[in-house]
């Protein structure tokens, strides 16, 4: 047709492409074979560099070739002048740039770049930083680049404030990128550290705590900067309340350092001649580290955690040699040393007393300090206000609801209990996929609240009945509890941690769905157990009860296990000490 261009047909184009591919494959295979031969022969020359470059530029994830390249480069380093080495490596960087253009997420290319940069006699870090910035501006979640950038920053000593500005820029252009927020969270404590003397609510451990090292840095930020950060992050979650990056960062801002590791309670029982030690954090005290001094004499005792499952545990126990403290007329003084943290706690067992303990009372601040900070109440109060404002606009927003719950707990856990429960109800509805998570979290908070109430009432009776509990936690706080009531909840098991209730005498756990009793393990004082209407179905599930020497009353009514033939005699045989058996 006149005036019209003739075009290659699709078939022709396909054919051309096919030929092209064939040709490429041939070249590729030939080059690969040549390279392998050379490497086998131990040749380390420019031609090998050339060949590997050819292949790597089309397939930068051929790890063997990078390795070969490094062998060659290392060799060249030994035979060339420094200027030439510099030039060689500079050429290498240029080549890598083209590889990164082909695939900006190639492990091989980034790794090799890191290697080259580190070996370059006169590195140009500014240029590398520029490369990272360019790359991140194209894809701000390229974690290869983030990794490389961290290396560059470290090697070149980029000032922290400059890096903070870098995160300003990244967050400004896309606040949904958690990498940027996270990087920010690592920079802030360096640039704006918390004032050196944080108000210490408990005793005076300062003399014993080691000087702060980078690893144990508080990760806290001074209040002035915190306020700015709150503002920044609020801008993000008000703009897009469904963006989790900002909420995570917010939680970090509100959160605080973990509890200091220390001995929070020492308990001694004359009758069992046993000592139990509770720590603020799980520790491993099985080897050495924990030392018991009785009336001035170091004792050779064997520490064990409350359950063989735990190598790390907040509660450790030991038996004293028989007869050491059983004489009721004498007073004994114990000191437990935790040598790893140079800390210790004393406990006196007075004449005529069968048991004794020494501990810090758990305050709400202590209990929840790992969740939210104890910044000035006024600050938290205004944060709560902002979030409530957002909730008014977005009543279904789970992040907002959850953050409100956390703020309320930090402010007044008992005062806000009713609202907290109602927010949890909403959370389970709007985010039904995670209703189990919310159930567990709510259980945790209810347990905490009950602990607080118990502390305030100074009793050793712990009642958690009818609280919708789905799991148990903070059991280390219940070391001294003698009576516990867990009835009418949704518990599935008494977890191994339950064995921390070393003083427990009476357990009521009726009307749950308990099928597992792992935690009823060597509870020395346990006398009564009521497990009516649960899901215990096998005799073997009750096997562990034999480890509780004082158990006399057991109520198993309404459990499948009672349907087993001869259950009465089987149980009598299994648990001869139980005199009061109800099935």
């Amino acid at each position, binding site marked *: 047709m006149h005036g019209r261009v003739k075009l290659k047909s699709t078939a022709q184009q396909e054919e051309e492409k096919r030929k092209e591919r064939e040709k490429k494959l041939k070249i590729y295979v030939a080059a690969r074979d040549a390279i392998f031969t050379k490497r086998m022969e131990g040749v380390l020359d420019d031609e090998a560099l050339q060949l590997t470059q050819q292949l790597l530029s089309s397939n930068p994830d051929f790890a063997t070739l990078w390795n070969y390249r490094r062998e060659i480069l290392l060799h060249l380093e030994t035979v060339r002048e420094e200027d030439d080495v510099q030039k060689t490596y500079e050429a290498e960087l240029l080549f890598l740039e083209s590889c990164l253009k082909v695939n900006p997420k190639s492990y091989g290319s980034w790794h090799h770049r890191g290697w080259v940069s580190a070996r370059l006699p006169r590195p140009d870090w500014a240029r590398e930083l520029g490369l990272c910035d360019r790359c991140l501006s194209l894809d701000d979640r390229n974690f290869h680049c983030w990794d490389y950038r961290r290396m560059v920053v470290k090697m070149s000593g980029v000032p922290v404030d400059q890096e903070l500005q870098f995160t300003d820029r990244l967050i400004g252009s896309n606040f949904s990128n958690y990498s940027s927020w996270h990087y920010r969270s690592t920079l802030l404590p360096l640039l704006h550290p918390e004032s050196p003397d944080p108000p210490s609510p408990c005793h005076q451990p300062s003399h014993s705590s080691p000087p702060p090292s980078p690893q144990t840095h508080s990760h806290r930020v001074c209040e002035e900067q915190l306020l700015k950060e709150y503002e920044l992050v609020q*801008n993000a979650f*008000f703009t897009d309340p469904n963006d989790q990056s900002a909420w995570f960062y917010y939680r970090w801002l509100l959160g605080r350092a973990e509890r200091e590791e220390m001995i929070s309670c020492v308990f001694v029982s004359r009758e069992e001649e046993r000592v139990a030690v509770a720590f603020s954090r799980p520790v491993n005290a099985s080897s050495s580290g924990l030392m018991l001094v009785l009336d001035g004499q170091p004792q050779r005792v064997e520490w064990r955690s409350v359950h063989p499952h735990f190598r790390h545990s907040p509660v450790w126990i030991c038996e004293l040699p028989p007869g050491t403290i059983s004489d009721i007329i004498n007073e004994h003084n114990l000191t437990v040393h935790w040598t790893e943290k140079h800390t210790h706690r004393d406990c006196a067992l007075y004449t005529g007393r069968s048991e004794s303990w020494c501990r810090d009372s758990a305050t709400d601040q202590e209990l929840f300090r790992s969740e939210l900070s104890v910044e000035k109440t006024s600050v938290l109060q205004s944060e709560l206000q*902002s979030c409530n404002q957002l909730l008014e606009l977005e009543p279904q927003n789970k992040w907002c609801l959850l953050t409100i719950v956390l703020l309320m707990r930090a402010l007044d856990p008992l005062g806000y209990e009713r609202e907290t429960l109602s927010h949890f109800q909403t959370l389970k509805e709007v985010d039904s996929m995670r209703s189990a998570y919310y159930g567990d979290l709510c259980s945790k908070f209810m347990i905490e609240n009950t602990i607080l109430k118990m502390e305030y009432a100074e009793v050793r009776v712990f009642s958690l009945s009818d609280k919708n509990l789905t799991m148990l936690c903070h059991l280390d706080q219940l070391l001294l509890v003698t009576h516990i009531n867990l009835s009418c909840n949704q518990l599935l098991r008494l977890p191994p941690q339950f064995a921390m209730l070393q003083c427990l005498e009476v357990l009521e756990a009726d009307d749950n769905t308990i099928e597992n009793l792992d935690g009823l393990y060597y509870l020395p004082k346990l006398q009564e157990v009521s497990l009516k209407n649960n899901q215990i179905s096998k005799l073997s599930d009750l096997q562990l009860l034999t480890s509780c020497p004082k158990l006399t009353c057991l109520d198993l009514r309404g459990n499948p296990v009672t349907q087993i033939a001869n259950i009465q005699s089987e149980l009598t045989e299994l648990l001869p000490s139980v005199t009061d058996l109800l099935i």
Partner: protein
Amino acid sequence: MAADNLPSEFDVIILGTGLSESVIAAACSRVGQRVLHVDRRNYYAGNWASFTFNGLLSWIEEYKQAGQSEEAVQEDWKEKLEEGEEALALSSMDTSISNLEVFCYASEEPEEEVNEAEAAAAAWSVPQTPDSEGEVERCLLESSSVEEEEPVVASDEASPASGPDAGAEHTQQEGQEGEVPSQAEETQGEEQQASPSPAESQPEPKKKITYTKIVKEGRRFNIDLVSKLMFSRGSLVDLLIKSNVSRYAEFKNVTRILTYRNGKVEQVPCSRADVFGSKQLTVVEKRMLMKFLTFCLDFEQHPEEYQDFSEHSFWDFLQTKKLTDNLQHFILHSIAMVIPEVCTVEGLRATQHFLRCLGRYGNTPFLFPLYGLGEIPQCFCRMCAVFGGIYCLRHSVQCLVLDKESGKCKAVIDTHGQRISCSHFVVEDGYIGADQRKNTDSRQISRAVLITDRSILPSDSEQQISLVTVPPVEPGGPLVRIIELCSSTMTCMLDTYLVHLTCSSASGSAQEDLAPVVSRLFYTPASPGEEPAEGEEESRGPTVLWALYFNMRDTSAVDRSSYDLPSNVHVCASPDTALGSDHSIKLAEAVFRQLLPDEEFCPPAPNPEDIIYDGEGPQGEGPGFEEAVPAEGAGVQGGESAERQEGKEAVEEAEGAGDAVTQETGAGDEPSPTSEE
């Protein structure tokens, strides 16, 4: 450049090279029609044209004189007519431009040290100056015999370091590859160094821009007669991509949207990042705005939200949305960009369009072509020429030859008196004489073009392209749209801004319509070169160095029935006041459908690699094609940038994969800070 004769037969003759005409030309030529495309002017694009500063001055002169001298009507076509034919004369006068007013506020004093070479260079850049022409001509003709006479012009071009201005020139050259903000500072630094008395220039580091300098740097300007932007998902961008015409041009993102409110110019937060970063909105406002915009993005899915307001105005609807005053302002004027009275659904649709365009190429919904909008019609003309269309500027049609019986146009008689037959004739509205118009009332567009010394809202970067919406500054006044272009758009010289103001005329005179806005947003010195008083500079706005006002007839609302013309004569309306070019593109497509109902409209031009050339086997064994590779993306911007483009594409491709990776491993990869040691 000897002119040959035109062929005497075409399928389609098109008169006028505005956007619609050029698109029609390209579309027809692309599907094999023989197209003759002519324009009486000596430049492309008609009222869509862009000019260098000096070109614009000539254009102004031309229009000022056009009002005075009536061209004698030539009657020599009579003998070209045959039995049964009659002639229909076209207008030889363009009356679409009126009320031209020019004001120069820059000082006219020459620069301190205009040396001879510079003066010559200045002259060289103005083609109209007969001196320079003579110079080169002479040099060309006599250089073989005149050895000692060094051509002055050439020496300046050859050595980049001559004269204090050479530095600036050099920097700008680099700037053409893409602007780095620091370059502007560099230039200033260089200028300072070159200055004979650095101490003197210290308090005022920015060099004052004189009129002489503007004229000298005139070719740096590309001043559009029509000021529009391209919606990144509008019909023009779609057509550019679809047809492959995009490879003839380059584009830049509009970087920000501004508005005038309570006497201040403010940035309008429209993207997510903008809303996040905005300092003027409270957090609650941020939520409100985002909530409303999110709703607009798929408002059709939530009829319950707006159904009750289908009979009401968009403004009424906004009132019910619990939006604060400034949010209402932003949405109405700067995002939907509609008048308060439009119906709710139209307002929602406009908002939706804006939002859909957002983020395709950048943080605003708009693109702007480098070198000005006037490039776009030319790109379509190039496409037409590539497919065999014949181009002839400075060439017009005197009259149409009509067949009395059918009433159709058989041929035209051109300005050289040649009779050229055609089956269709497409013509720009401006060539239609008053006799053929049944309906003479048309609207007017009021335009102002300003050259200023700084941005209307200075920011970290000098290279901002801004759209400013200005609601009526006085009751009953027009809604004014301002587009401010920086030098990296290649439409103005370094250290200046080119500002376009546009509105539908309310009073009939551009100056009356726009001067109130100019005086509020800009500083117009009382006498040329006068500086604002000390300390007032910031509050007064940018200083206007030069200003042009004019009106352009807007016939976009006029339809076919308003003309008394044969059925195979198609009229293309002049540019309208809208921000986008959708009207002109749709019109072009409609005309094409009438001309060639069975043909495809602007199918993609083939990639050069896919073309079979004569003497070539079907496998393409020519030596040139051994190495040929499939075309990479659209367009070419020179080695470096093309490579970059590719890299970017690769990165973008990888981006998708990256998302997946982050989702999969997100939790593990990016531990929350609390869990970090």
